[in-house]
Structures are given as structure tokens and as C-alpha cells.
């Protein structure tokens, strides 16, 4: 049941990316190109998503556990540190280079786009590099990166 509910959530998320046209990197790059012919659509996707999301998080705050009985776990970390900002800057550079972030890339992969497969493979390699650096790198043994969204 838990996995089925998760599958449906992933499916709906992917359909939302398709309906909003955000699975298309050209559309995302149109938003990021402020100095060119700017396409503000992505901002409207955020408005729609946050409007529903804010209601969901307000409801979640009043509950200890979800409909399926497991605890609702929200991130506890509040600090804005170098890891957060540096990582986000690297992510933003990669996002701006190809117009793909993780969700749209997985949806494009499902649509049979060969270039999405290349991006997803490289993304997984990048995540694996992070895991290896965390485990064996110079700063390993430090407190584990507490929360990941």
C-alpha cells in the first residue's frame, strides 16, 4: 500500500510536469533566459504547486502520522551553510546548461528521449560521487548530512 501510494504520487507528479510543459528543457531555459525572449511560465507552475502544497503542509502540521499510519517526517535542519549554498549553486549551473532538473529528466526518460538517458546516467554518477566523498573523502566521519529533500 505504501509503495502503491508512492507510485501514484510519482505518476501524478510526472503528469503535472507534462501538463505544465516543464518536462521540456527548452521551456525551462526560456524561463532562465531573462535577457532574451523571456517565458515566465515556470513562475506560474510554482504558483499553482505552492498554492496546493501550502494547504497540504498546513494539514500535515496538525497530524503526527499519515493516512497509512507512518509518521510524517519533516526536515528539522534550519541552518543555511556552505554545503547548502555551494551545492545549490552547482545544481543551478547544471540546470542552466541543459534545462533539466531531476524530475523532468526522469519524465523525459519515460518519454523515450535518448538525451534524457545520458543526463540521468550522469546525474546518478554525480550522486554516487557525493556518496563516495561522504564516505571516504576528507570530511568523512563528520555528522551525516541530516536531511535531504
Amino acid at each position, binding site marked *: 500500500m*505504501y*509503495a502503491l*501510494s*508512492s*507510485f*501514484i*504520487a*510519482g505518476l501524478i*507528479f*510526472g503528469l503535472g*510536469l*507534462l501538463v*505544465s510543459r516543464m518536462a521540456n*528543457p*527548452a521551456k525551462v531555459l526560456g524561463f*532562465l533566459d*531573462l*535577457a*532574451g*525572449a523571456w*517565458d*515566465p511560465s515556470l513562475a*506560474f*507552475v*510554482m504558483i*499553482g*504547486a*505552492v498554492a496546493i*502544497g501550502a494547504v*497540504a*503542509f498546513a494539514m500535515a502540521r496538525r497530524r503526527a502520522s*499519515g493516512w497509512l499510519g507512518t509518521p510524517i517526517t519533516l526536515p528539522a535542519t534550519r541552518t543555511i551553510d556552505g554545503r547548502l*549554498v*555551494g*551545492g*545549490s*549553486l*552547482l*545544481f*543551478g549551473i*547544471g*540546470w*542552466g*546548461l*541543459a534545462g*533539466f*532538473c*531531476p524530475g523532468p529528466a526522469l*519524465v523525459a526518460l519515460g*518519454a523515450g528521449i535518448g*538525451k*534524457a538517458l*545520458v543526463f540521468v546516467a*550522469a546525474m*546518478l*554518477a554525480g*550522486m554516487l560521487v557525493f556518496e563516495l566523498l561522504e564516505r571516504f573523502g576528507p570530511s568523512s566521519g563528520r555528522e551525516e*548530512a541530516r536531511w*535531504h*529533500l
Partner: protein
Amino acid sequence: MTIDWTAFTPWSGVIGGAIIGLAVALLLLANGRIAGISGIVGGLLRPSTGDIAWRVAFVAGLVAAPVAYAIVATLPPINVEASYPTLVLAGLLVGVGTRYGAGCTSGHAVCGISRLSLRSIGATLAFMAAGFLTVFVVSHLLGA
């Protein structure tokens, strides 16, 4: 700044965004989890007991979405203009960056702003700024 009115799709944006919001709501209220895609995928590379199935299921749902969409309607265009070397570099940066930054567009921008997390808003400002700057450099300074 000039707005590209021919490309601008506010309605499909808001409606598609609301559908994304519903997916966030379902995973949060049913499963008690935050729909942060880089975290869900990244967690598969750090397996812990009983934590794999829902992650695989969520990713399978994302990948299945275009198949389901194509049953009822023609898929919208997906244009990937980046070259293969650019895609590899971009993928590596997105992979490493989202893990160090503890989130991507879904976890920090959609979920983080929805719950008014200052940390997520900071991360969103950082990756948005880097995205704007990267496109400016690539399209207008390097003239690619």
C-alpha cells in the same frame, strides 16, 4: 526584458503546477514523505532497510507518466538542445549539487516554499540565480 508572449503558457502552467501540488499532498499526507526528487533518487544510492520500495515506486511513477499521458493525449514536445558533452557535465553538476545542497526544484522550491522554510528559500534563490547567470553566459556572452 522582453516577454515571449507566443511561448508564454500561464494556464497550463498553473494547472500543471496544481497537479504537482496534489502529488506533493498525496506523498506527504498518505506516506508522510516530502516529494523531493533528488532526495528520493539519491536515497537509492544509500540503501537502508525498508526504505527502497517506496523510492523505486515513486521514480517508476515519474517514468510511467508520459506512457499514461500518451494513452489519452499526444505528448507535448520535449526538445533537448544541449549537446551530449554538455548533458554529461550538466548531469554531473545536478547530481553532485542537489546532494550537497540537499534538494532540487521539487524539494526546495515546491515543498520548501510551501512550508515557508527559510533554508529551502535560500537554496532556491541560490540555484535560480546560478541558473539565470549560466544561461546568460552561455546564450549571450559565449553566443552558443
